Every structure is written in structure tokens, then in C-alpha cells.
């Protein structure tokens, strides 16, 4: 769960992003620093065809790639549409906006940075029913806490 004191921003582009653009954007954001948590959202890209007559067959999707962010490999599981960030304090927001403008300057579509509250602050009754009382509160509301892979930790430059 997020602490209400931390500001959050959401980076929304008018197009779904290619893995190389995501890599470029995230590496630029990592340079800005001050990011506590980050979540990539978008449409799911499953490993196998989930339903229909071809159910269970491998789904080779060119955008389901491993990208390199900072010193970590990140397996993309979605077609990235939004990036949600939780920051240490508000002073990082102008730098994030600048970074986004820089990355999208050469693109023929726009991208905006929205301020607001985009991560869950409190578990709901449904969360309790689904995941029980011991669910990892750090990632609840961002991804399924029952997932085996934990969050990817990118070391900061402090």
C-alpha cells in the first residue's frame, strides 16, 4: 500500500509503446531518480493463447521482450500504455516531465504527465477475500500478490 504522503504521477502516451521506446523512457526516468515504485500498465500479452480454438498454443508476440533498465533485466508482460510512478517528493515532478518531453520529442505522437493518486492506498474487502490477510501490501493494487515473481529492484544512485 502506498503512503499518502508520496506524490504520484502517471505517464500516458497517445499510442502503445514499443519495447525499445519503453526501455529508452525508463532508463531516462531512472536517471532522474527519486522513484520509489514504478508500475507498467497496458494490455496483457500472454505466453500462450488464452482462449479460442488455438487455446494453449504458444503465443509468440514480438513485443513481449526483455528490456534492460538500469542494471536489471525486465521481462515485459504487457503492451505498455501507461507508466505509474511513486516519487519521494514533488521536487522530482518537473524533472520527470522534462525527461518525458525529451524521449517523445522525436515521436509523431504526444505523451502527458498527470499528477494524482494512481496506486491503491488501502486493501479492499475483495482484496482480503481474494488474497487473504497476509498479502504483500507493497505490491497489492499494482499486480497480483500471488504471482511468484516479485518486483524488480533497480538500485538507485544514492
Amino acid at each position, binding site marked *: 500500500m502506498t503512503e499518502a504522503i508520496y506524490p504520484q504521477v502517471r505517464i500516458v*502516451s*497517445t*499510442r*502503445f*509503446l*514499443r519495447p525499445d*521506446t519503453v526501455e529508452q523512457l525508463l532508463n531516462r526516468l531512472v536517471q532522474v531518480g527519486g522513484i520509489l515504485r514504478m508500475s507498467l500498465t497496458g*494490455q*496483457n*500479452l*500472454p505466453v500462450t*493463447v*488464452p*482462449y*479460442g*480454438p*488455438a487455446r494453449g*498454443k504458444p*503465443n*509468440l*508476440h*514480438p*513485443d513481449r521482450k526483455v528490456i534492460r533498465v538500469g542494471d536489471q533485466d525486465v521481462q515485459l508482460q504487457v*503492451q505498455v*500504455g501507461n507508466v505509474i510512478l511513486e516519487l519521494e517528493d514533488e521536487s522530482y515532478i518537473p524533472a520527470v516531465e522534462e525527461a518525458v518531453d525529451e524521449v517523445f520529442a522525436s*515521436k509523431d*505522437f504526444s505523451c502527458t504527465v498527470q499528477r494524482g493518486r494512481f496506486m491503491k492506498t488501502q486493501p479492499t474487502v475483495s482484496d482480503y477475500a481474494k488474497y487473504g490477510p497476509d498479502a504483500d501490501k507493497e505490491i497489492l493494487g499494482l499486480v497480483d500478490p500471488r504471482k511468484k515473481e516479485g518486483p524488480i529492484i533497480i538500485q538507485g544512485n544514492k
Partner: protein
Amino acid sequence: MNEVKENMAYKPQYGPGTSKVAENRRKQMNPNQKLEKMRDVTDEDIVLILGHRAPGAAYPTAHPPLAEQQEPDCPIRKIVTPTEGAKAGDRVRYIQFADSMFFAPSQPYQRTYTECYRFRGIDPGTLSGRQIVECRERDLEKYSKELVETELLDPARTGIRGATVHGHSLRLAENGMMFDMLQRSVLGEDGIVRYVKNQIGEPLDRAVAIGKPLDEKWLKAHTTIFHSLGSTAYRDDAEYIEYVQRIHTLRTKYGFLPKEA
């Protein structure tokens, strides 16, 4: 193909509206209007994308050919000429399309109207994000060829998707392609869109090229979708609104079964 007879008592209007979008809709629906051919796709390519039978294989049948079986004495059967597929006893198979809301050349309701005016022996199914048409297999291949080759399809913003159709209302990808979870069609380096999977998502032995995506200007000029951002807004077509409101009022009143005084 169907054609409107010259000696009909009235001239069909196909749809209301004074806007460009309304005009495009009428153009697609009118069977006397030849659809512009945009690309060449071979019969084998169509069979591959559909994925119902192997190319070159015989058509599996659901019943013996009509000529070989006893037909009941039915006046309707005497009036209606069976289609080629029905005559041969083919199975009923389908093609399904998803059209992006970002100015795709056609959309589900429009497709159904268009097909009903232009093709025989079909059973279209219309949903919000996809449109399916079922018919006898060899008729399907003939109709599919027309649906794919003409201006009803844009390689980037129209998807031939038998299952997992999600994507029509989503943002486009960076390269202008409509989102497809199974990525059946891929935009190549050379700017040509190729189907690498058949409509249900099974990989194809060879990629099927269906041409270059149409440019934004062409799409906006030929779209049949009202869109307040970037195209004609629905509310700007007063005649269309008036017609829809009239139908709405009449069917609401009819719900109360009004009696003429």
C-alpha cells in the same frame, strides 16, 4: 452478387445523412456501386488466413450435394437458387473482423448492412467490437476475397480475428497498428503488413502479405465512423440525428400499442 432491379417501385436510399461519413456508408451498402480494389490477395492466401482447410484440400461436406439427394416438394426451394456452396453441400464456416475506432474504413453494423445488400446465403453476427459472417465454405472464400481486397479493409486498422478480438477501442500501437494480443499481423520494415498467424492465432507456414496500411488522409476521407475527434461528429449530421430520433420515438410509442382514434 445482388443487384437492385431497375423496375423496383422505389429507389433504395440505404441510409440518411448529409455528411461525408453518411455518404461513405451509402456507398458501401449500395450493391450497384463497385467497391474500390485496393490490393491483390490470392485465393490461397485467403484460405491460409481463414484456417478452415488446408490450401488445395477438398471442401469437407455437411450433406450430399443437392443434385444427389431428394428434395422435398417445397415452393420456396423452387424460387430460391442455391448458392454454389449450398449446391455442393459445404460446411458452414466464418470470417470475423475487428475494426479500430480510429477511422477504420468499416465497422460492425456497417459490415452487416453491406454484406446483406451485396452477398447471398450469409448469416452475419454483429457485436460492438467485432463482426462475424457465416456461410458455406466456398461462398465464404469468394466473399472473404472481396472483403479483404477492397476498400472495406485497411491492413493496419482492420483485423481478421476469429478469436481474441480485443483491440478495436484501444490506442493504436506506435507504428499505427491496432492492438492484437496474438499479433496475427505484423508491420514489416518495408511497410507491408503480413499475416503470420491465421484468424484463430495458429502460426502460418508462410507469411501472407496484405499490403501497405492506408494513410491517415485516405482513412479520414473514407471512414464510416462518426468521431468527434478528428473526423465528423455525429451531432454535426442533423439529418442523421433526425432520422434516428424518429425511429426511436416511433418504436417507443409502439411499445404502448397506440390505437388510431
